[in-house]
């Protein structure tokens, strides 16, 4: 159970206008990691390195025990990969694609593939070119899932899906985890999806991992404290404060190292704690990115 399905150590890759800098990533088997970043943050480059599609300049990458990119052929038999720019063969049907995959992947599960087609409301005899965007995403996901890979790597799997299709996809991703040896890494900028199903969360911005933790710890660490200061009061000094908002005697502090004892620290310094707000993953992500960028430009 404690095996790492994905392990990046000090991985860097330089491009003329972008570089991925010293990436560390650990994904235990049997869990789901949500990989969050703004557009152009480095999510897809990281995923391409993981798949051996792009070779890192420095650092080591191990996927399901295989060294990448050297052992990528062996690793890929066990990885199901779906990305937005992946093309299916338009003149052919979904059934044709299934028949094509079957002899390549030893664990191909035809019964499961047909069951998924029913659940995703896909017709086996329909040609790919007649499918909507959402149906194509679901078709690609079906082809990846039916191979029963030990690791699923999904680049933006829910982008552009309607709410019903999104729910169907999230349900199937969760169902994969019934088997404790199977692992999912998915990138998204939909923080709601990530917050709901991920065990591990990693934030990436401008080519750097800015935070990575298990979800419960993540959500527990971040709080917003709304204070009322006495007339001549000063804002209490608290650990992990990344932003001070609000105004004058009504400051709002955002901390990433919250501890319930902070409330009495504020009270001892004469401040009244009006509220301690939990934060959504989206708020945490935005606060995190802002504070990092401010520190860089300061």
């Amino acid at each position, binding site marked *: 159970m404690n095996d790492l399905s994905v392990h990046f150590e000090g991985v860097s890759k330089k491009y003329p206008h972008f570089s991925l800098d010293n990436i560390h990533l650990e994904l235990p088997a049997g869990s*789901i990691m949500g990989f969050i970043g703004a557009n152009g943050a480095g999510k897809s480059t990281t995923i391409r390195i993981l798949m051996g599609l792009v070779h890192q300049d420095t650092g080591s990458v191990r996927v399901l025990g295989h060294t990448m990119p050297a052992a990528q052929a062996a690793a890929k038999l066990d990885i199901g990969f779906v990305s937005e720019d992946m093309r299916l063969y338009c003149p052919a049907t979904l059934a044709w694609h299934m028949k094509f995959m079957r002899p390549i992947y030893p664990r191909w599960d035809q019964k499961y593939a047909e069951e998924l087609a029913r659940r995703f409301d896909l017709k086996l005899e329909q040609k790919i070119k007649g499918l909507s965007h959402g149906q194509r995403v679901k078709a690609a996901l079906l082809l990846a899932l039916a191979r029963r890979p030990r690791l699923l790597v999904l680049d933006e799997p829910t982008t552009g899906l309607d709410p019903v299709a999104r729910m169907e996809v999230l349900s199937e991703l969760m169902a994969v*985890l*019934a088997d404790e040896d199977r692992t999912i890494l998915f990138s998204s900028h939909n923080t709601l999806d990530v917050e709901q199903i991920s065990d591990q969360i990693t934030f990436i911005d401008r080519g750097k991992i800015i935070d990575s933790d298990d*979800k419960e710890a993540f959500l527990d660490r971040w709080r917003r404290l709304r204070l009322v200061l006495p007339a001549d009061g000063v804002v209490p000094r608290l650990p992990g404060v990344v932003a001070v908002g609000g105004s004058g005697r009504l400051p709002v502090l955002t901390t990433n190292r919250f501890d319930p004892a902070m409330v009495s620290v504020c009270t001892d310094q004469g401040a009244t704690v009006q509220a301690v*707000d939990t934060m959504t993953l989206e708020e945490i992500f935005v606060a995190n990115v802002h504070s990092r960028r401010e520190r860089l430009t300061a």
Partner: protein
Amino acid sequence: MYTQYIDMHSDVVISQSDSRPMYQQIMDQVKQRVAMGEWASGEEIPSIRQLAIALRVSVITIKRAYLELEREGVILTQQGKGSIVAPNPGLSMELYREELTDRLEDVARLGNLLGLSGEEIACRTKEAANRLSEARLIGNGLTKERV
């Protein structure tokens, strides 16, 4: 003892617009059902992974809810055997006590907002308690004068 599998996922509802963390929503709903006797002690509850899949919620979130429920004595988890509702007759009072603590904190916070002192807040709380017992007496057919 007769054990019955609880169809939990049809009963537990997770709300994304609820400001409480998801693990707390799960804990609260389990506790409420146990306190109301809907779920009897000894009954089997789904495994962590089963419930995670049914609710489409991270395994780690359900794990946390179960760990805290176990620590509070609401459920028992046996290694390799899954979890059951624990024998715990004191749970319902415990629930009300917890809720009272939460509500009192709200009262204190609102009082602070209005600039009331601790004594003033206590005084208002006492008044509220008096009003409630008067209302009860009237409800029982006793008027204030006759008491």
